[in-house]
């Protein structure tokens, strides 16, 4: 029998970025809020203590901060005709665990969104016609515009302490010749901090990109270029490019995280409680199945606890949100055969390509120097910044040098043809480790009828519940775009005049490789939209079917973005919180009539 706790106003599942933002917003509104985080308590001290955290083996290689998949993982198959197999070792993606979630170990590339990507289907139909979109591509509009979200992007950047260079502010050109992005949408204010310094690798990319006629700009980074205090009073120190960023706790208080930027403020308020080691099993619904009554979780000692609440926020990682909805019976599960149902629909990822350029010993790229969010990028082939008409694919890709710091066990690479061991490997590794530039095309990934999430019929987690099953593979549109981007980025690499080049792009017929890290930018499965027949959430991230459940996170994206998702995740969470504070609490019920 479950122990029943005292009822609270709101319970939040997961304490990463979305959980922390919601906790702050809802406690500001006077609600009594409990956040349940299944992993342990984590913070700059002791988890990011110098020098213990400067340990590649423990963090990058043995993956200390990531989800413990010995207890729960996902299964993966390439099509409905295959039998899904468990993701037994972390590979393609690295979800977080513990207080801060992936927000504690992320890199910090902090973008907004290209406005057309919020109305992807409408935009493509308007410019290229309905037939341009492949038949099985299920892209949709988000149901919210850039103009509506702008104040929330702006506020999130102030909370994160983001470094960057505006192109225009309130219509005034401010960023020309200073590293601004001419393709960026208008802003209501400058970035809180100026851009970070550029590594020598990024300088090489900047010059080469300009030489071939592209328009390089400084990446917006949630790593601080100087000291900063955010609107919550949280203090950050300047990033020193330590090179232990992605996969690590920042020892310098320089990388924005829920732990550094929001939790210190929440600790001050009496109406907030954070319970780590609390693993939520399901959302409980009343007999009508239209209203949630709270959640059930397992505590650190293995006891089953019920936490009643008026409002339930699912703030876990993308695929955990989807799994919790499926396990709880919230929303109609998606069926890829009929195309009906919504939960699990439009699962999308990131379409990556990488080029590495190797140099002589007079080019010192010093790859151990780095910060996760810094770098130089071009948007000439992102979103719809070029005419897709002659190329026959949907989607775009920013390209960049984002030198986050490479370490010797996992971060060395040698020119193609170098043996993997022996004296020849040794010599090449010594020759090239500090003399190479790695650049990425961070391609948008579209949603398709056959890429979706549901519950696995065979494999179960440590608590006996079905694992989430991913049915996912690359489609023709993805390969076509990837090859186009490799060609365009190849021009930048060649303009650097390196000794050798390695290209890691997709080949025709290539399947999704679960073992090779790509990004942790997983999208969809509980998507927002304007029609309950085609989306699980309305434009305020409220469940169409259960009005007191809100589901912030990239699970709400109907398809993937060219940019990294965290900036849009944060802005949408603030947007949703505003709707809860100003509309829902006064009159609890659906915020949009179906």
């Amino acid at each position, binding site marked *: 029998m479950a122990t029943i706790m005292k009822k609270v106003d709101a319970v939040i599942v997961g304490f990463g970025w979305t959980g922390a933002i919601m906790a702050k917003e809802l406690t500001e509104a006077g609600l009594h809020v409990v956040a349940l985080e299944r992993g342990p308590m984590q913070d700059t001290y002791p988890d990011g203590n*110098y*020098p213990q955290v*400067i*340990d*590649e*083996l423990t963090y990058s*290689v*043995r*993956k200390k901060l990531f989800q*413990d*998949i*010995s207890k*729960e*993982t996902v299964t*993966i198959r390439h099509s409905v005709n295959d039998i899904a*197999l*468990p*993701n*037994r*070792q972390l*590979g393609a993606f690295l979800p977080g665990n513990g207080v801060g979630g992936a927000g504690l170990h992320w890199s910090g590339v902090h973008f907004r969104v290209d406005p057309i990507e919020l109305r992807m289907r409408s935009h493509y139909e308007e410019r290229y016609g309905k037939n341009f979109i492949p038949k099985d591509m299920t892209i949709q509009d988000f149901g919210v515009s850039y103009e509506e979200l702008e104040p929330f992007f702006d506020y999130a950047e102030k909370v994160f302490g983001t470094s960057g260079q505006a192109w225009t502010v309130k219509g005034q050109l401010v960023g020309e010749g200073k590293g601004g992005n001419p393709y960026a949408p208008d802003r209501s204010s400058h970035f809180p901090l100026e851009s970070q*310094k*550029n*590594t*020598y690798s990024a*300088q090489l990319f900047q010059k080469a990109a300009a030489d071939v006629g592209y328009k390089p700009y400084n990446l917006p980074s949630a790593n601080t270029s100087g000291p900063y205090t955010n609107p919550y009073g949280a203090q950050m120190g300047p990033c*020193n*490019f*330590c*090179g*232990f960023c992605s996969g690590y706790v920042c*020892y310098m208080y320089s990388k924005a995280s829920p732990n550094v930027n929001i939790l210190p403020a929440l600790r001050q308020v009496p109406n907030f409680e954070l319970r780590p080691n609390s693993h939520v099993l399901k959302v409980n619904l009343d007999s009508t199945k239209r209203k949630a009554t709270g959640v059930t979780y397992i505590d650190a000692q293995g006891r089953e606890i019920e936490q009643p609440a008026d409002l339930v926020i699912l703030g876990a990682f993308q695929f955990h949100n989807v799994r919790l909805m499926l396990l709880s019976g919230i929303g109609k599960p998606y069926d890829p055969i009929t195309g009906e149902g919504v939960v699990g629909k439009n699962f999308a990822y990131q379409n990556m390509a990488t080029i590495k350029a190797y140099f002589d010993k007079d*080019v*010192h790229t*010093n790859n*151990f*120097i780095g910060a996760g969010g810094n770098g130089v990028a071009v948007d000439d082939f992102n979103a719809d910044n070029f005419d897709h008409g002659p190329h026959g694919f949907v989607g775009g890709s920013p390209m960049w040098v984002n030198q986050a710091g490479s*370490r*010797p*066990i996992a971060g*060395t690479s040698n020119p193609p043809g170098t*043996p*993997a*061991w*022996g*004296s*020849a490997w*040794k*010599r090449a*590794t*010594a020759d090239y*480790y*500090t003399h190479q530039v790695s650049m990425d095309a961070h391609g948008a990934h579209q949603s398709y009828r056959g890429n979706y999430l549901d519950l696995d019929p*065979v*494999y*179960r987690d440590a608590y006996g519940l079905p694992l989430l099953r991913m049915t996912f593979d690359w489609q023709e549109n993805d390969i076509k775009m990837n090859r186009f981007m490799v060609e365009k980025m190849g021009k930048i690499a060649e303009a650097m005049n390196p000794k050798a080049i390695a290209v890691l792009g997709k080949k025709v017929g290539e*399947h*999704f*490789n*679960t073992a090779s890290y790509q990004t942790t930018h997983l999208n969809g499965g509980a998507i927002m939209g304007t029609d309950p027949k085609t989306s699980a959430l309305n434009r305020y991230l409220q469940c169409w079917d259960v009005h007191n459940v809100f589901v912030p996170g990239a699970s709400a994206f109907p398809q993937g973005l060219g940019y990294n998702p965290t900036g849009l995740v944060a802005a949408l969470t603030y947007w949703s919180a505003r709707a809860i504070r100003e509309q829902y609490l006064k009159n609890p019920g659906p915020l949009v009539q179906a």
Partner: protein
Amino acid sequence: MSDQDRDNPRRDFLRKSLTLIPVVTVASTGLGGSMLMATPEPAQASPAKAPASEKAYEPSYFTAEEWAFINAAVARLIPADAQGPGALEAGAPQYIDRQMNTPYASGALWFMQGPFNADAPPEMGWQSKLVPKEIYRLGIAATDSWSKAFNGKTFAGQDSATQDDLLRRLEAGGAETGEHFAAVPPKIFFNLLLQNTKEGFFCDPIHGGNKGMVGWTMIGFPGARADFMDWVERNEQYPFPAVSIRGERA
């Protein structure tokens, strides 16, 4: 491969009888330790200092036969040569033995619920039921049995050229290994051995490998310095030697 030390009789002797060698005390690099006699040759060509070691390490997981294999194999995967010390001198065998006592080696970091499909294509990732401890136990026995079938010698007893040849064949999938590798696929064994050897060459010395930070020194990685504010924008060689978590300087 152009190993200058190939079949050097002294090195060969050292490799085979490593656990039997007494240590000699020398004025070391401030660690107050002593030094194993496996000094890289030619010493004057080595950019890194000779490695230091406290005393001969006694393996806690590997048997004497397995320990001889590990010592021999890592010395071929990352050999001591003109570039400097190799994985043996860096203490990779000790590192690997210590790792065998961690949750990693028991597969406790992985999802290990059945059913297993060990023959799944590589893009489905790890699908074997085997865990690192088992892979070493089975893989070393298989390699030695395969090696003996040629000339009666274990892997550790073969000359360097033969050892390299055997390793290359395991790396390629070892189709010709026959029944010797019935219990463990040669490639899984080879990949694990190579991965752990590189870990032992490049990890922080706190884990028992990379002694004297020889791996870091070879490639110019500054270790735990982790503060490059003044170096971000420069096209210059970083001038400072590596430091470790414990504060040792290379």
